[in-house]
């Protein structure tokens, strides 16, 4: 039976980012992959995640900055498609994700004789995400409270608990699933959240999907905020 009250509340944190310019730029795939090999991992995080909050209305396309530039500027459609299809959610760390991105480009470069060059002004600029994480005033002890607070928090908070904590802070699970399973004894709901591919939703779509799962569990459709 679901406990009415978790022993420790779920405290919603939020993640805000400031974009740091690295001064690195690439005009073709050779330069692009060389930088990808050597940039700090936070740069990989920025270019595979910032669009989720920044371009949320554009989802499911473009999937990430890397694929977007390769497809739309270099017009290397096949490679762009492969970069877009990289299953970000599968990678336990940013280094693993970097290896996969670089591997896909290297493999493609072996088949290419000539490289296309970006038109002047459309080079790829590598940027870094400086992440600030801070607690919000939102917290929940029950599933109903969790749903209520989830409706109110910003996209930055949802992104923090689903993406940031796992890839950048090094947790092995997303924060929502961990709390639902450990503190609310909701293993099925936790598994349902874990099973979502958050990279294929807009942030609002993701919020609604999470709420849908919770409401289903609660057996009621709570009033929307």
């Amino acid at each position, binding site marked *: 039976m679901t406990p009415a009250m978790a022993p420790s509340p779920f405290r919603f944190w*939020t993640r*805000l*980012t*400031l*974009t*740091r*310019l690295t*001064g690195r*730029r690439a005009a073709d795939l050779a330069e692009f992959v060389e930088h990808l090999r050597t940039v*700090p991992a*936070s740069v990989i995080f920025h270019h595979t995640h910032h669009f989720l*909050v*920044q*371009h*949320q*209305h*554009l989802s499911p*396309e*473009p999937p990430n900055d890397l694929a*977007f530039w390769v497809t*739309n500027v270099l017009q290397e459609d096949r490679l762009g498609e492969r970069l877009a299809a990289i299953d970000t959610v599968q990678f336990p760390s940013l280094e693993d994700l970097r290896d996969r991105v670089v591997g896909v480009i290297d493999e493609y470069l072996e088949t290419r004789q000539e490289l296309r060059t970006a038109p002047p*002004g*459309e*080079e790829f*600029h590598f*940027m*870094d*995400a*400086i*992440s*600030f*994480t*801070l*607690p*919000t*005033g939102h917290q929940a002890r029950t599933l109903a409270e969790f749903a209520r607070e989830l409706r*109110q*928090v*910003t996209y*930055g*908070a949802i992104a923090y608990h689903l993406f940031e904590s796992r890839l*950048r*802070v090094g947790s092995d699970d997303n924060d929502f699933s961990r709390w639902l399973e450990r503190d609310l004894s909701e293993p099925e709901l936790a598994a349902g959240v874990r099973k979502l591919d958050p990279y294929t939703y807009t942030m609002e779509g993701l919020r609604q999907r999470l709420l849908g799962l919770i409401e289903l569990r609660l057996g009621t459709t709570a009033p929307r905020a």
Partner: protein
Amino acid sequence: MTAGLDAYAPFVGRATIEELRLLGERLRGRRVQHINSTAVGGGVAEILNRLVPLLLELGINTRWDVIRGGDEFYAVTKAIHNALHGQPVTLSEHDVAVYRETTEQNLRTLALSDDIVFIHDPQPAGLIAGRAPGSHWIWRCHIDLSAPVPSVWEFLRPTVERYDAAVFSAPQFSRTLPIDQVLIAPSIDPLADKNRELDARTIESIVTSLGLDPGRPLVTQVSRFDRLKDPLGVIEAYRLAKKYNDCQLLLVGGSATDDPEGQAVLTECRDRAADDRDIHVVELPPTANIEINAVQRASTVLVQKSLREGFGLTVAEALWKAKPVIAGAVGGIPLQITHKYSGVLTHTIEGTAYWIKQLLNAPDFARHLGENGREHVRHNFLLTRHLRDYMLLFLYLGHLGQSVITLD
């Protein structure tokens, strides 16, 4: 009386305002001094006029000072500005002496004791010489530094390198520097006359008073009469589209009376438009914000066919009105428009004409672009995001070089 932070909640949501307050709590009492070169006119003064009261509301002890300089100093800083933009200008020894002398005079009169000193653009950059121990200094560059005149940049660079951080509006505007560089785009104020909601009667009355027919499609470019905005190219694109689509063209911009080049461009536009009663070339005073707002809202398609651009905030203003925008892929415009998602980026007159026709003939797609564009502006180019980024930068100064910062 300016609107407080809560007035922005209807646009960005209450949770976003809460986040701003959380950041403000962590900066409460911190003393921040903004310094620029003018209290009125220009984009920097416009944005500081809005941001400073909001920073104060958040508990950050913010003040704003303006440097003083004579005509000769401003002639030199104008030359520096143009050279940094890539125009072939050089500085004489006398110019350098004038710049240094005015900097010295300001160092004697300005109190520079705040925790954070935020210097805007090259004019006051030399004030870093008066840096107090323990303070942090930020240089905010609103200029495109991608291709500066080397000698002028070499004059300024050692000064910039003494700062803790530099802020640029677009990644391609930055230089390789040994200090931290961050990207903070400018913003628009949804409550300003230029952007606020207008009722249908006001819009129609303004459009009619300008001689436009509110019942027919309208293609508009709002910009100064400047060759870099390519108004003649817009007329050509309109003519190509007009062969297949009934529409009117409006070129509207600020008065060009004190700018001989602008006056010449305006005259050429009028000459080129003389044989077509559907082309309207309109000069408005710089205070005509509601009129600009109204014509943007009345337009079917908005064009910003710039050949070179700074950030190009008129694009964000147009997108905020949920209009389909066709714009040149230059300067900061690609940050505002993702091609075929939140607008259209073009490189040629023919491409612009092609997309005018497409958007006039596909109103559902045009509406979709406009709606995406408005959402993109809501999340990335409103004043509240600008305020957030400035506060994050202030906080970052205590954590230079770090990538994950926890603010318990």
